């Protein structure tokens, strides 16, 4: 895949050089090396690699931001950015920016910069369609809760309701499959992620979100510390909400299963985290 990607990039560069015949012909500016953007590869509705295509809310927002920065879509190299390694990817320059359900936290801000937030998600619960779990309350007592290794969201629930038992897997996909077939009772993480699974073809009608949101996760664009592009990206993000692009992206990618994002907290004002 990467080969065909490179071929595409070379072809694009060649076309550019031909059209710019006579001028400096170098493909100057940001066009020169494109952008390496870190996304999730396994998060349906947010960042999913399906064959050669990349889909999801984060991917679409990333494309719009790249467009705003003057980088064409075919100059974007998508890089897998798994949760535990996002800071490292940025610090070591393996990616230029990250759109991967990346919550802005003080701890992370010590290591990287954030543009945004561009979306406010909140922790919620995904359960089987006929489950009697109603939310973060006694109905969870004694239930089997799934989350991923290194995630703190499940720990939070365990503090509130000590009776729940925790299963940890490498990815949420493994959790979703087991909640859908009833082996495990609930999956907890950000509502946007959960909505992505509920909307997936395989799980249509088998999963539902319950209990609203009980935390605030400000999704930001991860950037290397003190990035110069940070303010520029904030402006682009605010623009996306103003002209309705963001609403469209959300309903295209997450709306399938009747998901409603938290209207009280969205749209957020991007800025202040650079």
């Amino acid at each position: 895949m990467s080969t065909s990607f490179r071929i595409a990039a070379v072809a694009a560069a060649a076309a550019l050089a031909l059209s710019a015949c006579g001028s400096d012909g170098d493909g100057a500016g940001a066009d020169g090396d494109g952008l390496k953007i870190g996304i999730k590869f396994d998060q349906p509705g947010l960042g999913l690699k399906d064959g050669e295509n990349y889909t999801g809310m984060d991917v679409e927002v990333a494309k719009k931001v790249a467009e705003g920065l003057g980088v064409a879509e075919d100059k974007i190299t998508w890089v897998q950015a798994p949760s535990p390694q996002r800071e490292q990817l940025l610090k070591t320059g393996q990616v230029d920016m990250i759109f991967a359900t990346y919550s802005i936290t003080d701890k992370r801000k010590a290591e990287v910069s954030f543009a945004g937030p561009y979306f406010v998600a909140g922790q919620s619960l995904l359960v089987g369609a006929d489950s009697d779990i109603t939310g973060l309350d006694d109905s969870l007592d004694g239930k089997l809760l799934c989350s991923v290794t290194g995630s703190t969201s499940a720990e939070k629930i365990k503090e509130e309701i000590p009776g729940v038992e925790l299963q940890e897997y490498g990815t949420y996909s493994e959790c979703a499959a087991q909640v859908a077939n009833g082996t495990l009772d609930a999956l907890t993480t950000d509502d946007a992620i959960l909505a992505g699974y509920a909307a997936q073809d395989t799980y249509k009608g088998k999963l539902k979100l319950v209990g609203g949101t009980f935390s605030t996760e400000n999704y930001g664009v991860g950037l290397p510390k003190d990035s110069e592009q940070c303010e520029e990206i904030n402006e682009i993000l605010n623009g996306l909400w103003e002209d309705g692009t963001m609403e469209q992206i959300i309903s295209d990618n997450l709306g399938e299963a009747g998901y409603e994002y938290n209207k009280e907290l969205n749209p957020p004002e991007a800025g202040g985290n650079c």
Partner: protein
Amino acid sequence: MQTIFEQFGLLAAFWMTIKLTLWSALFATVIGTLVAIMRLSPVGILRQLGATYVTLVRNTPLTLIMIFSSIALSGVLGLVLASRDAPGGYIATQNFRLAVLALSVYHAAFVCEAIRSGVNTIPLGQAEAARSIGLTFSQSLREIILPQAFRGAVTPLGNTLIALTKNTTIAAAIGVAETALVMRNVAEFDPGLLWTAFGLIALGFVILTVPMGLATSFLAHRLAVKR
């Protein structure tokens, strides 16, 4: 260093390693001996079955078997190995037992081959003598062949045990709280302690496996059938 013991629970992780090793060794020996008997038996179809088992299992990565037991056997097919009110929690117990299942099934193939290599140390005359005094297949297996085979197989069996001990780390793939999980948690939450964690865990495995190696050599000498 204190943090690794207190916050990340290294000692508990090694205790888990030991528990996984002991239970898996027990079941692997039982399954492996059964498969070895099948492979030595006069019934063609049983020999084939045993051989197929060994070929299939030995060519599949333990990691895959481990993940399969959790995601497919437990997750999809609904295999339940623990009761809902098991002490220590249903999920922890279930995962532990699934890990033991995967480790046993995998290492049984190596136990089987170790026993067969032990059988190969037994001179022809032993079996001929057994037959000539009228022992049946199962009698000669029980009285003559297997006891000598186990003694001749001490070294490969010991090596399988050492490999099993190290392979218990793979249980981390399904969330069993043992040393590899500690290693990963340290790397993710406290990267400054990476070297210390590696050193301590490596040391722990040396402490566990070196006596096994010594015991194997000692027993191999001690139990060797003098010929």
